[in-house]
């Protein structure tokens, strides 16, 4: 079933799949963490700015 | 107790708290050994278990001087000693926090560093197990050393001197487990010894630590 989608990697299946697996996980992880941090920072800033507004 | 544990963990993760530095130091020691010994794969793989243990031990050691000295300097220890919390418990909690922030991460990355040193594949599991069993002893013994040297400004080196001899049994059996494991030999005897040391130390050391700390606060 899998072999229908995956190309035949021969005896090197392990290193190739592991590389792509770990590489993609790291990349996606980095993007997700960045976006998560970005969202959090934005929310914090918005909270402070709106408080500022209501003060003024 | 929980408050103290949480505070210590929180401080460790805050800026300047030093979490992760132990790991980096571990990596560096491993690298340095490789540089110093020269890049001969077969030689490296023979000394790999020992080097990993030494790296873990030194990383642990270097983070010890933060364990109590910071609290001593800013007066927190005086206040903790007058708080409704037995000093033994407080020190055990601090040792636990130290292990979580230092020992545990070392256990987790040790196999990855094994790769750098050409550790034979069957050794990975055993170095992890050996460290997992042995590192709690390092933290608890280290707390004792930290308590003894707490009054000395920047007593890091003296601390090393006092603590390292106490680390020797753990090191010997721990490295033996890892070495035998890597060579596919039976590990049960040294592993039992290692576990025995850890339990013994966990049971007795906090009392000794509290006693010497009381003397130092005087």
């Amino acid at each position, binding site marked *: 079933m899998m072999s229908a989608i995956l190309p035949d990697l021969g005896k090197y299946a392990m290193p190739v799949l592991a590389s792509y697996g770990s590489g993609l996980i790291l990349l996606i992880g980095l993007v997700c963490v960045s976006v998560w941090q970005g969202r959090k920072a934005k929310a914090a800033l918005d909270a402070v700015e709106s408080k500022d507004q209501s003060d003024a | 107790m929980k408050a103290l544990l949480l505070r210590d963990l929180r401080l460790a993760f805050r800026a300047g708290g030093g979490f992760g530095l132990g790991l980096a130091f571990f990596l560096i020691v491993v690298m340095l050994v490789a540089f110093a010994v020269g890049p001969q794969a077969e030689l490296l793989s023979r000394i790999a278990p020992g080097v990993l243990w030494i790296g873990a031990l030194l990383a642990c050691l270097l983070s010890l001087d933060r364990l109590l000295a910071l609290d001593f300097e*800013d*007066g927190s220890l005086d206040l903790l000693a*007058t708080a409704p919390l037995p000093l033994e418990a407080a020190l055990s909690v601090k040792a636990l926090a130290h292990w979580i922030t230092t020992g545990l991460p070392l256990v987790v990355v040790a196999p990855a560093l094994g790769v750098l040193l050409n550790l034979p594949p069957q050794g990975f599991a055993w170095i992890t197990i050996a460290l997992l069993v042995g590192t709690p002893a390092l933290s608890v013994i280290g707390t004792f050393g930290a308590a003894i040297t707490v009054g000395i400004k920047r007593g890091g080196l003296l601390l090393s001197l006092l603590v390292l001899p106490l680390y020797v049994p753990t090191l010997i059996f721990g490295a033996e487990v890892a070495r035998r494991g890597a060579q596919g030999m039976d590990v049960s005897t040294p592993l039992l010894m290692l576990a025995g040391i850890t339990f013994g130390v966990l049971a007795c050391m906090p009392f000794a630590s509290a006693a010497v700390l009381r003397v130092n606060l005087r």
Partner: protein
Amino acid sequence: MTLTVTDLTIARGGLPVLAGLSFAVSKGQALILRGPNGAGKTTLLRTIAGLQEPIGGAISGAEDQIAYAAHADGLKAMLSVRENLEFWAEVFGQDGVDAAIKTFNLTELGDRLAGTLSAGQKRRLGLARLLVTGRPIWVLDEPTVSLDVASVALFADAVRGHLATGGMALIATHIDLGLEDAQVFDVGPFAATMDTPRGASDEAFL
């Protein structure tokens, strides 16, 4: 409940510094310790707080009753003002962090890291810690160092409040705190002389 000190002799650095001290503090009372620099006030307070042993005499009523505050405030630079107080409140199993913050006028600084406070602000935080200990006896070593006049008044109010609820206070200080009905105890006359050997460790060699 009274804190009683009887014929106390204390030593520092191997030599006795004060000898024959006796006094008592009871509920709602404050005792101000006075004496020149180096007289032994700090040593006395540490002894009463249980951090060192007296070499003679007795202290009663202090056990687990004392909130001690010295020069070092025990603040963590990397925790916020509120987190610092919350930690101590939890250790002593109390709440009242908000009240303490209000009392010492720290409301605006609540979320600042303690490391970024000025000298006087740090001190206020150190004193606020006393309120979250719930302990009846306050043992304070020069509590008003670095405080401006307004803050000294805040502190005096806090002490008065503490006394009014049946607390006690033992305060070493060089300045006038404005606590009207506090007794004053001068340690000067009790300075240990050559002939008060009471077992401090160096004496075996004299």
